[in-house]
């Protein structure tokens, strides 16, 4: 199977491959199939209109907007504080990093200082979010590949431990609504820190097991290597960020580039891929989780005592000075940015989200052309999308 795919040149072979009587629907030669929006592997309400020649994808048109909730317009009509819980609902896997990105841009806009302990807490929570996001991504990806159940359950077991931490800190598993501009809402007690340390210390065991489970698996290698290759040039031109870009070998991590928060105080490496195929994208997540564990251990050692909220910040009737700000962070899926324009009023004049999963999804057709329908699912899984963020 893989041999035919690799030698296939979509343009040259399109007219010669199949006799016309075999594909006589819609387009004359191609069979048009609508995958989604209720397909179990499309990660939510995402639809792909795929034109197939036999089993080979010749055209792919992503269709989204089924989960559109007018997030940006709501953001322009609610107060700065009121937008914070809505950001949880963008990428509902990583509400902590969404909160951080939004808080960061409001802090830039209004020039707010954040206490040291709050910055450390933010790093800890963002890295925990990265752990649980990547773990569940691996589970979903394997589930899409046909490893039904088992890897997903192992991943979710670890994810649930981290979500329990989030729940006991912020009150909610997924809709944390934890960060505020000027700090964090509540402080983490010492018992919470102990629990978090225990979970982080335990995490590498899960990673070792998970690597044993998947890395050398021949079926997984056959399904992922040389599938959905993305070149570094295309990735840069299309604005791809996050693990998907680094899988192509481009060294671009906003934690290093911008050095926002206290990331310059931590020692960590940025894992890079070579081939930019699905296997690299998958392994990139495993390697990033290992680095995140390292960051977390350093953060637990360094975190100082002190307040977690800047006392000067007035959350209610908050009116930043007129101006504009773009705050961005390295979310688990890529560069997550919030662009705010203030006219001095209680609501932002313009509120714009730069969602990483949406922009990473734009190259889906380039990744999928020439592969089979079954590969489309795997490629889509490796892009790591959450429809809440794509459609907003």
């Amino acid at each position: 199977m893989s041999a035919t795919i690799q030698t296939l040149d979509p343009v040259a072979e399109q007219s010669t491959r199949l006799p016309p009587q075999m594909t006589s629907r819609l387009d004359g030669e191609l069979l048009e199939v609508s995958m989604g929006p209720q397909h179990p592997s499309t990660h939510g309400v995402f639809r792909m209109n795929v034109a197939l020649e036999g089993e080979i994808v010749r055209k792919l048109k992503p269709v989204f907007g089924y989960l559109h909730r007018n997030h940006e317009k709501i953001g322009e009509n609610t107060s700065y504080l009121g937008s914070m819980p809505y950001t949880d609902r963008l990428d509902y896997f990583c509400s902590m990093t969404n909160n951080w990105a939004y808080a960061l841009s409001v802090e830039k806009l209004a020039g707010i200082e954040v206490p040291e302990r709050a910055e450390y807490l933010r790093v800890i929570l963002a890295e925990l979010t990265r752990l649980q996001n990547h773990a569940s991504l691996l589970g979903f990806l394997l589930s899409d590949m046909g490893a039904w159940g088992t890897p997903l359950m192992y991943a979710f077991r670890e994810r649930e431990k981290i979500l329990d931490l989030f729940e006991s800190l912020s009150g909610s598993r997924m809709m944390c609504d934890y960060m505020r501009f000027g700090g964090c809402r509540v402080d983490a007690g010492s018992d919470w820190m102990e629990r978090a340390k225990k979970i982080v210390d335990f995490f590498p065991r899960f990673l070792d097991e998970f690597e044993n489970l998947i890395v050398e698996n021949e079926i997984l290698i056959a399904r992922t290597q040389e599938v959905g290759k993305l070149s570094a040039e295309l990735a840069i031109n299309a604005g791809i960020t996050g693990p998907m870009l680094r899988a192509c070998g481009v060294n671009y991590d906003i934690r290093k580039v911008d050095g926002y928060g206290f990331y310059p105080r931590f020692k960590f490496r940025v894992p890079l891929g070579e081939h930019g195929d699905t296997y690299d994208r998958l392994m990139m997540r495993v390697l990033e989780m290992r680095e995140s564990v390292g960051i977390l251990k350093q953060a637990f050692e360094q975190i100082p005592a002190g307040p977690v909220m800047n006392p000067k910040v007035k959350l209610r009737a908050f009116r930043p000075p007129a101006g504009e700000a773009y705050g961005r962070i390295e979310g688990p899926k890529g560069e997550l940015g919030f662009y705010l324009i203030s006219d001095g009023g209680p609501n932002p004049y313009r509120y714009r989200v730069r969602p990483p999963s949406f922009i990473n999804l734009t190259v889906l057709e380039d990744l999928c052309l020439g592969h089979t329908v079954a590969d489309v699912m795997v490629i889509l899984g490796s892009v790591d999308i959450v429809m809440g963020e794509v459609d907003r």
Partner: protein
Amino acid sequence: MIGTGILKGMAVTARNFVGSYFEKDRLITVQYPEERIPLAENYRNFPFLPYDGDDPHAGLRCVACKICEKECPPQCIYIIKSEDKKPDYMGKPQFYPAVFDIDISVCMSCQICVEVCPFEAIKMDKVFELSRRERFDALLQRKSELSKSNTYYHSICPTEAAEVDAKLAGAAAVAAAKKKAAAAAASAPSGAGASAAVSVPGSTSASGAAPPAPAPPSDSV
């Protein structure tokens, strides 16, 4: 050799399967309706209105200032202010909500109402088994359903409730001391007593109530 990777993976599943009989953290399933995990103290679900004492009307802390209604991002709170007033925990006459509805089908449990409330009058509840047969009326919680006693609040969030109680007791003590001082100041020059008595019920704002009382005597001195 082909197949070793699969065998390695199967060793992991075997270890997990056997391990689930012996290790606690490999078998983390909780048989929910029979078994329950204790909820975290910070856990939040939907708001409720705590009241002091036994009477939900007399002890209700809410003064119908409508800040939560204004700040609520999905606009799920609906308040109508009362015509008359009732004394609050400091003995000061305050308005109370004649109607206080929360549509919990709209509420997104964000806790912003709790954060902005200056009177500690709205808190987050932990009840989560709220499935109903109807969509509209059953999910619209009225004041009577929302009012829950302070004892209940202590039972769900002991630490936070104790902090709130201490804060309110402190505020009440300060207010009582101020009142006493004002009364002492008012009783000393007896001629100004009539004008002071008129100004006290007329002033409604929380901070403005104490200063006007001693002001007339200081003018007369």
